[in-house]
Structure formats: C-alpha cells, structure tokens
C-alpha cells in the first residue's frame, strides 16, 4: 500500500512538471537587472568586514564596495591610478615622501567628513601590535612601520605618517617606491572611521564591534544594508559618497556559495550575474553552449605547495627538489587547472620583471635528487601528508600530484583534508608536511610575491629562513633604478628557487561566468574591478 501511494504521488508530480515549467517566471537575474542590483557569487562567508583584520580575496570583494582608498582601481587600465578618497597623491623627487591631498567633500556614510586624521589613525591601528593584523606587513612600506608593529618602539610618531592639515597627509616610505600608487589601491590602505571605531572600543582591541551591520560606517560608494550569515550580504548606495550621482548600480548582493559546481548551476539557472570561478568541466561545457558567457582572463596569482622545512626529511633541500621535479605541471594545467600556465617561479609574468626559472618536470633529476638525499627508489622514505582544504579543485590537484610522486619517485604521500579554518591553523602552527596554497598579488609589483618569504613574515609559514634573501629585498627597498631593482628581486627569487621551500605549480588565470546583461566589467590583472561604473542592461 505504502509503495503504491508513493508511485501515485510520483506520477502526479511528473504529470505536473510540464505545467510548472510552462509558467513564464522572471528569473532572479532579470529581476535584479531591472532593479539595478548585481548578484555576485563570492565563494564563502567572509571572516569579517574590518579591513585591518581580514586578508582574503572574497572579503576584499566586499570591502571594495564599502571603503575607498586614497587611490582607487581604474575600471579599464591596470596601470592607471585615479584618485579615490584623495584628489591626488604626489611623490617627491626620490619617490620616498608622498603627499596625499584629500577630497574636501569626502564623507563617511554617516555624514562625517573623511579627514587625514582618519587615515593616520587607521595606519596606526593596523600597525598596533595588540590588534594582531595579519596583513600589517602591507604597511611596512612606511618608514618605521615594521619596528612599531613588532613592538620595538611604542612611539607612533617614529612612523612615516604625518597629518599636515585636515585634507593633507604626508607618508614617508622606507625607500624609493615609484609604484606606491599601485600599493595604495589595496584595501589595507583604506581608512576606517576614527570616531566610530573609538566609540565601540579601543584602538588595538580585537573583536571591536564597529563592523557589526548596525555599527559599520565606510566611505565607499556603497554601505552595508544587511548581512545574513551563510545566505547573503547586501550593500546599497551610500548617499554621502562624493561621487554618488555617478554611481550606476543600486546595490550588490554577495552570495557565499562554496561549491563551484553549485555556483555555476545557479548561474545557468538565472540566479547570478557572475560566478566567482569556473571549474575545468564548466569551462568545457560553456565553451560548447555559451562561449560568450565564459571569461578567461590573465590573473596575477600562483598556485603552489608549501614545504614545512622544519621537519625531517623536508629540511633537506634535495628532498624538496626531488618532489618538485617530479610534478608534471603541463599535465596538471591541461586538466585539473584548465587554462592555467605551468609555473617555474613564484612570480607570474608582470611588467618588465623577468623571473628566474626553476627546472620544471624532470623525472631523472627527481629520482637522482631523492637518491642523493638517501632514499634511492623512494626506499625508506617516510609517509608524508599533503594538507589540503576541503575544496573540490584542491582534492583533484592533490590526487594528481600524489600519483605523480608515486609513479616517478616510488613514494606514498597521504592526503590530509581539513576544513578551511582548521587548514589555516595547521599551516600557521607549522603543523603540516606539505600544504596546498595559493597567492594572489596585492599590487602590481613582483615584491608582492617575494616579500612573504622573508623569515618573520606572517605568510611565510614554511620555516624557511634565508638571511641572504631578506638582505637582497632590503637592498631593493633603497634602489631607485627600476632595472637594478628588478635585478635584485630576481636574484632573491633565484635563492627561493635554489632552496626550494616552495613547489610552484601554476600561474593562475581567472575563469568565471558573466551574464550578458553586465556591462563594463573589464579584465583587470588583480580582478579589483570597481563596482560603481558597472551597468546592468535589461533584456539581454
């Protein structure tokens, strides 16, 4: 009887299906387009909205709508540096002292004026050791910032930040930095509202509630409207934004969709204007069905593995090299990372910088190096673990490299799968053997890929400590000549390749799906597209 009821119900549902399909209902994207709301897939729930605390790409996508730096990204050109909160930022003759002239009409979303004092306060807050800002090293461009952040001095006046008047800020850097305007585009250099932060807590207080939806105040084109955890974040027009009259979109909705396959299905079902990413299978599918909706663009990002150089036997550079030489990057880029480029250095091609090259795939050399290290044919090699975060593409990559190591070196590596936060903690505590990771450039200069490998940098996480490498970077900070500076950086990078604390896998490309109604979303190397000039054209 039970069975029969089910069968009857199923038949009923099947019979109704065509009826359901025939109702012409406006898709969510069409409706949002009509209302001027951009629907973005954003891969996950943000850790927070405090620009001094967070460090991920997905958070930066939201912060770009809520906060505006002195310099902002240009919707078309990577090299352009239009003023944002500042009218202009001008260097002295050596590009060491920079003067920012703020907009006199700049306002926070609560109507208070944005002043130079807000910026000075923000940089002090970011560098205050008690705050524990993970990204504080982005501000090490400032003279004295590193000493202050590491607690060597308590006196913020020793840091190169000077308020001249309400609208004028002077930044003194550690050395000549001709590309400083590029750096200023990054969200770590945006200001937080001094009056709001201090109302809700102290300057160095972690977990200050000022970023809660009911408290947060920004100076960007949009302000936070609502935040429902694991559901969506809505931002809406900021009426006090200096250029509010020219903001085209009425709002943006960020959706934390973790599974890229689910995300692309939602896109094809008319629930998203744009996806965060597109997996190889989705690329194949879209190339066949809707090539015009598939975007594949260059990106400044690298996929790599970290080695824990403090652990046996990875403390031996020969072992690390053996593992690196055994990876066939071409095969990986053909399948797992469709459209990526095999990486032979940590720095992807960028401007005039020519990075030195690692050897790449060389099974003979790999076996030789492993034998030299005392494990001929992989005999006696301990079972190492490859740490990955629970994400779809990471597991595929890990299984491919696992097989390559087994086939080339005869060694068995175990895949250790951890939830994202547990994965981060394991990496920070050096509680891993080999870890899958990626790095997206913060600004357009090779330094953004190199500085992280200095011994006490918060993103090193390999235990690798080479004073010569740090020295070369220090020297580059004082070098005014661009060619000589790049030569120093290349020399440092060759040390990184020589010691091999990192296994380079691929230079990334940005693959995503974009709905035809979105106009003005242009390829940018850092994918830091400003939202305010995006147009949504109904009926496409």
């Amino acid at each position, binding site marked *: 009887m039970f069975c029969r009821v089910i069968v009857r119900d199923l038949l009923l549902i099947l019979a109704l299906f065509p009826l359901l399909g025939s109702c012409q209902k406006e898709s969510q994207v069409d409706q949002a387009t009509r209302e001027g709301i951009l629907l973005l897939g954003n891969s996950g729930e943000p850790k927070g909205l405090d620009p001094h605390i967070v460090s991920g790409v997905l958070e930066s996508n939201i912060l770009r709508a809520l906060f505006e730096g002195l310099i902002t990204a240009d919707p078309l050109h990577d090299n352009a540096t239009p003023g944002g909160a500042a009218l202009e930022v001008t260097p002295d003759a050596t590009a060491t002292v920079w003067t920012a002239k703020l907009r006199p009409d700049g306002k926070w979303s609560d109507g208070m004026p944005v002043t130079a004092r807000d910026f000075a306060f923000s940089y002090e807050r970011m560098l205050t050791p008690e705050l524990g800002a993970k990204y504080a090293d982005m501000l090490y461009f400032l003279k004295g910032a590193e000493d202050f952040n590491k607690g060597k001095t308590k006196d913020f006046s020793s840091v190169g930040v000077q308020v001249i008047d309400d609208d004028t800020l002077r930044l003194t850097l550690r050395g000549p930095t001709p590309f400083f305007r590029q750096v200023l585009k990054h969200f770590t250099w945006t200001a937080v509202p001094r009056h709001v932060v201090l109302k809700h807590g102290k300057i160095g207080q972690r977990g200050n509630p000022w970023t809660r939806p009911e408290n947060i105040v920004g100076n960007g084109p949009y302000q936070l409207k609502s935040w429902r955890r694991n559901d969506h974040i809505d931002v809406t027009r900021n009426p006090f934004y200096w250029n509010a009259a020219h903001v085209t979109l009425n709002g943006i909705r960020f959706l934390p969709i973790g*599974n890229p*396959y*689910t995300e692309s*299905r939602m896109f*094809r079902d008319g629930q998203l204007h744009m996806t965060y990413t597109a*997996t*190889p*299978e*989705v690329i*194949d*599918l879209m190339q066949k069905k809707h090539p015009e909706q598939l975007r594949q663009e260059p990106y400044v990002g690298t996929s790599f593995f970290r080695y824990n150089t403090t652990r046996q036997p990875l403390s031996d550079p020969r072992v690390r090299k053996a593992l690196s030489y055994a990876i*066939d990057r071409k*095969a*990986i880029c*053909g*399948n*797992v990372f469709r459209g990526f480029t095999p990486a032979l250095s940590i720095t992807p091609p960028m401007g005039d910088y020519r990075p030195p090259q690692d050897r790449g795939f060389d099974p003979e050399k790999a076996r030789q190096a492993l034998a030299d290290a005392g494990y001929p044919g992989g005999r006696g090699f301990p*079972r190492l673990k490859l740490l990955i975060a*629970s994400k*779809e593409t990471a*597991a*595929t990559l*890990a*299984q*491919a490299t*696992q*097989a*390559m190591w087994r086939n080339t070196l005869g060694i*068995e590596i*175990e*895949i*250790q*799968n*951890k*939830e994202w936060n547990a994965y981060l903690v394991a990496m920070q505590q050096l509680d891993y053997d080999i870890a899958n990771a990626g790095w997206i450039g913060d600004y357009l200069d090779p330094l953004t890929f190199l500085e992280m490998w200095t011994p006490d940098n918060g993103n090193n996480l390999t235990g690798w400590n080479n004073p010569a490498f740090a020295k070369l970077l220090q020297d580059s900070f004082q070098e005014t000549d661009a060619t000589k500076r790049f030569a120093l950086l290349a020399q440092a990078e060759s040390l990184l390749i020589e010691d091999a604390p990192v296994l380079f896998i691929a230079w990334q490309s940005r693959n995503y799906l974009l709905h035809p109604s979105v106009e003005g979303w242009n390829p940018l190397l850092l994918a830091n597209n400003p939202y305010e000039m995006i147009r949504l054209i109904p009926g496409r």
Partner: protein
Amino acid sequence: MEKGTSLWKDAWHRLAHNRAAIVSLFVLVFILLLCFIGPLMPFVKSPTAINLSNTGAAPSADFWFGTDQLGRDLFARVLYGGQVSLLVGLVATAVAVFIGVIYGAIAGYAGGKIDDLLMRFVDILFALPFLVLVILFALVVDNPASLFTDWIIAKTGFARDRVAPITTLIPLFIAIGAIGWLTIARIVRAQVMAVKKQEFVEAAVSLGLSRPRILFRHILPNVIGPIIIYTTLAVPGIMLLESVLSFLGLGVKPPNSSWGILIKEGADRMEVNWLLLFFPSIFFASTLFALNFLGDGLRDALDPKSAKD
C-alpha cells in the same frame, strides 16, 4: 498430526514465498560478490591509477563505465567504493544494532532503578550533537588506525591499494557504531516493556526459566520486527554519514573513494558527464532498494504472531 517446526524454519518458509524479498536477496548477494570478489579479477583495473591524457572518457570495451576527471577507471572505482560503502553501512549498523538491542532489552526487562540509570545515560549521549561526537571519536582513533594499516601491510605484504581503503575505515566503524546505538536502544526498551507483560512471558516465568533465557528466547523474537525495520532504515543513513565525514577529512581519504563520494563528485559534474553520477547512483540505489525489500520481507517472515500457511 502437525509436526512442530522451529521459528526460523517457519520464517524461511514465509520468506521464500515473498518474491520481492528473494529477488532483493539475490541482488544484494550479487552486488556484494561484485564488490568484494570482483576486484580480485585480473581485468579490473586499479582504481587509483591516474591518466591525465584520458580524462572523462566515455564507456568502452577497455573502460566499462568510462573514466573520471583524473582518467581513473570508473568501474574499478565503483567496485572499490562499494567495498567501503557496504562495509560501513553493514558493519557499522551491525555494531550499532548489536549494542542497542542488548542495552535496550536489559533496560526494558530489568525496569526500575537499572532502567532509569541506563536510560539516563542514553539521554545524556543523545543531548550531545551526534556529528561532533563522531568527529571527536574518529579523530582520537585516527592515528592508531593508520599505524595499524602500516602494520598489516608490513605483516601480510598486501598492496596498500587493497588494504588502506578498508583499514582506514576502522575509526569510522567504531565511531558510528559506538554512537549510533542510542535510538535502537530506546526502541527495543519500549518494545520489551510492552511484551514482558504478556501471558506467554508469565508462562515462561512460571516454568522457572532463567531471566536471560526469557529475555533472549521469548521476548526478543517478538520485537524483531521494529529492529529490522530500524536497521534497514539506518543503513542508508549511515552510508550517507560516511560521505559527510569523508568530506570533512575523516573516514575515506582520497584517492580512495566510496559510493557517497563518487555520487557527490558525479553530481558536481553531471551537466558535463552524467555517467559519473549515473553508475555509482545505480549501485547505491539498488543496494538500498534491495535492503528495504529484504527488510520488509524479513519483518513479515520473522513475526511469530503471523499465521502459519
């Protein structure tokens, strides 16, 4: 004069007349044989051998079910994955049911203070979140289990491919089994309490039978129906739980797989290559259907109150 027959003989007789149950039994045996004996055949390929130049291939004489996103033979992966899913589903459920039935029967039959004590302990365990407990438990036994794997390989010389997928599951068996018995204990307790007041139990008591004998010979066979129904309902749940835990990094580790994981991977890619979803799903669904029909048949067959025919 009618010749006396045992409960089990009656049951078998009734089961043999239930066509759905018998067909299910055959299907189940077939899948079990395929998954556990099949991989020993020389024509079944390695489930972990990667070939990046042959990814997502269509079914062919060489690859019966085609290949997956890393060029691995899907047929082999379905068979090996079946070992994992069937073992977890059947063994972990058996562990849970075994503990739960004994625990619940004792609590229900003893009654009074013992019952209170035993059931309050169950309540406490029920109050703790199931998934968190299983994760904690599996974490604790994870490392000993991988040492055990290495030990087995060293002792027996079997290939890691064949040993590891099964031995790394031991934490999962223990974890799910040790925590999954709570519901069944409650069900059995309630049933035993209802049955123990009936006349045939009083008769057994007045005959002077020992308490364990009354409990296990006379009461338990009368509550076998709910137990079997619960068991057949629990198996699919536990198989799904396995894929959840594996996704969180406990249980099956890549490159090894299970039906749950294969179905998840296949569902992700179904628009591109629906066969990746189709084949593991067919196996998974047939197993669950068969288990349900068989459970249904067994319940009818084992009910001592049902009429003789």
